[in-house]
């Protein structure tokens, strides 16, 4: 079974480029060039140099002994939280900014939910001296003031998305509209493995450094580069795809993707896309999304702004439909408790997104022998307000 993109931009039934004609030349330019550029020696050299010296890679693979004792397995945390800017998002923005430069683009746009991708984009734009415009839902701007300030300090213009629910989905719509209106000089840095082909593949390639390092580190630490389980949270799904990438074809490695159930899968306040969604088209690709019978997109809900998205990337939809990946969900409460537990047992405050992946360990049964890797996709600094309110700290 092939789990990667085919010649026509599809993963099984999912993917494609469902875009209006106005975006066609941009997306086509990318499609024709991305693989060649990514494979250029000069690109690879620059990309890896920046990942090493600027981002701080490789990120550690840490055997979390106290979590391991609690769950009766060898729990390894892939420490993406230690990256510059505090999450895995920067792996992708470094890759895309180098690509945008090679395509001669002068202006960068991005969407952001919690602000992590916006900060990672504003950071690389500051680094390379490119103009940066970040679209962010009006409600998210209010909820994530520190990240808004960081983006502004980095020189980005933050534009509020005032349409729809005024969150991530609407910020993405606004970024796409900006791109429609600026077809020549602008590159759109999408922050997840979503969007029209080739974005899901391109973002997955840039994030695949996560599993590439993990294999090497596991081999060094355990003598075996095959873990039994790999876990990651999924909003659009970029850290999960990075964490799964080099294990996908190795069917012995079980892939577990953890979605946000919000207040409960059937509460009406959830972002558990595979549980609640149907096949359809959103933001340029055919995938699984939460929608009404009439095909209108349903507003998702999660305590975690990074998982608060009504769809998943098309490759995830394919892994789900073929059964290669197991897609589960975790509620707000469960994730916050798992965040606290990780903090108190390991001295690591995880982002609430990553805490969803940790929370699923509670639901698994181990025999003491398994090697389990959890992608700790981001740090919890940005979530302190939520943790403080929830736990009365």
């Amino acid at each position: 079974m092939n789990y990667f993109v085919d010649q026509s931009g599809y993963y099984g039934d999912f993917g494609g480029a469902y875009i209006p004609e106005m975006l066609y030349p941009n997306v086509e330019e990318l499609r024709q060039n991305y693989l060649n550029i990514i494979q250029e020696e000069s690109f690879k050299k620059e990309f890896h140099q920046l990942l090493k010296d600027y981002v701080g890679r490789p990120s550690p693979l840490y055997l979390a002994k106290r979590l391991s004792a609690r769950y009766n397995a060898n729990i390894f945390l892939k420490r993406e939280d230690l990256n510059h800017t505090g999450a895995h998002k920067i792996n992708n923005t470094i890759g895309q900014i180098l690509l945008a430069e090679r395509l001669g683009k002068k202006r960068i746009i991005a969407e952001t939910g919690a602000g992590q991708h916006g900060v990672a984009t504003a950071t690389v734009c500051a680094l390379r001296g490119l103009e940066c415009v970040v679209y962010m839902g009006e409600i998210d701007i209010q909820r994530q003031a520190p990240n808004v300030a960081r983006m502004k300090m980095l020189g980005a213009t933050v534009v509020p998305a005032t349409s729809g629910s005024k969150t991530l989905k609407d910020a993405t719509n606004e970024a796409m509209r900006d791109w429609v209106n600026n077809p020549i000089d602008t590159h759109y840095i999408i922050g997840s493995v979503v969007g029209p082909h080739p974005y899901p593949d391109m973002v997955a390639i840039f994030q695949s450094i996560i599993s590439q390092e993990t294999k090497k580190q596991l081999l060094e630490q355990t003598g075996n580069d095959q873990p039994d389980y790999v876990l990651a949270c999924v909003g659009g799904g970029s850290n999960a795809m990075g964490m799964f990438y080099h294990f996908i074809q190795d069917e012995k490695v079980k892939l577990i993707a953890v979605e946000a159930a919000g207040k409960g899968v059937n509460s009406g306040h959830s972002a558990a896309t595979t549980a609640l969604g149907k096949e359809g088209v959103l933001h340029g690709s055919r995938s699984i999304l939460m929608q009404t019978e009439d095909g209108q997109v349903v507003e998702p809900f999660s305590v975690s702004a990074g998982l608060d998205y009504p769809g998943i990337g098309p490759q995830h939809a394919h892994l789900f439909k073929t059964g290669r990946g197991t897609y589960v969900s975790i509620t707000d409460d469960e994730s916050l408790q798992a965040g606290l537990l990780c903090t108190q047992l390991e001295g690591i405050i995880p982002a609430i997104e990553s805490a969803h992946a940790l929370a699923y360990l509670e639901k698994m049964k181990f025999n003491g022998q398994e090697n389990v890797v959890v992608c700790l996709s981001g740090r919890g600094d940005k979530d302190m307000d939520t943790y403080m309110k929830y736990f009365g700290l």
Partner: protein
Amino acid sequence: MNRINKLFQDKKSNILSIYYTAGFPGLEDTLKIAEELEQAGADLLEIGFPYSDPVADGPVIQASSKQALENGMSLKTLFKQLKELRSRISIPVLLMGYVNPMLQFGVENFCQACAEVGVDGCIVPDLPMTEYELYYQETFKKYGLCNIFLVTPQTSEERIHKIDALTTGFIYLLSSSATTGKNLEVSQSTEAYFSRIKGMNLKNPLMIGFGIHNKATFDQACAYASGAIIGTAFVKSLNESPSKKSVTAFMEAFRA
């Protein structure tokens, strides 16, 4: 013969096409507005079926779509309303909207429903040409529907020829690469672009849309194409007043 092909056979210039959103400003206004537009001299109608995430639209049409959805508009409701379409108007009608509602309705069901109520074709901006050609073209043909594709200043010549080969009604020439509702300012480069496409001698007639908002821009567009399409300016006018009198007044400005 499809009403759209008939229209372009009979009329070669100054064709006026009007876009508006179904179920806006009131849920039951869809056919009333169609009738008033026909009486006021519209040659062709594009009725928008609303979608929650219209990425090709500017603020005015976004707001009308949102309002229509809040009013309870859906494809099911729209086709129910359109049962009376052909007893009330005779000009050609296109449905315009995004691909996801159509997919959920089922493409075959959608085409069949269009044929049953007397809709002549559709414009689905985010339905890719390749997917249309591979999976949907046969169904569209089976029900005698035109599928209209867009062309922008950035569309390559090769692609325009491909679009021309796939299209059976007219080609929707965008005045610029933009979301709907940006006023057209005809510059030398726009004129060069219009002339370039006109000079390609395509088999399909051309209609120019996006940014046509007054008589001057309508006339400019008509100099290069069979006619022009007005969307945002009309929806804006419905926003200000949906009365028959204002619909008539709006149309008079273009027909003067």
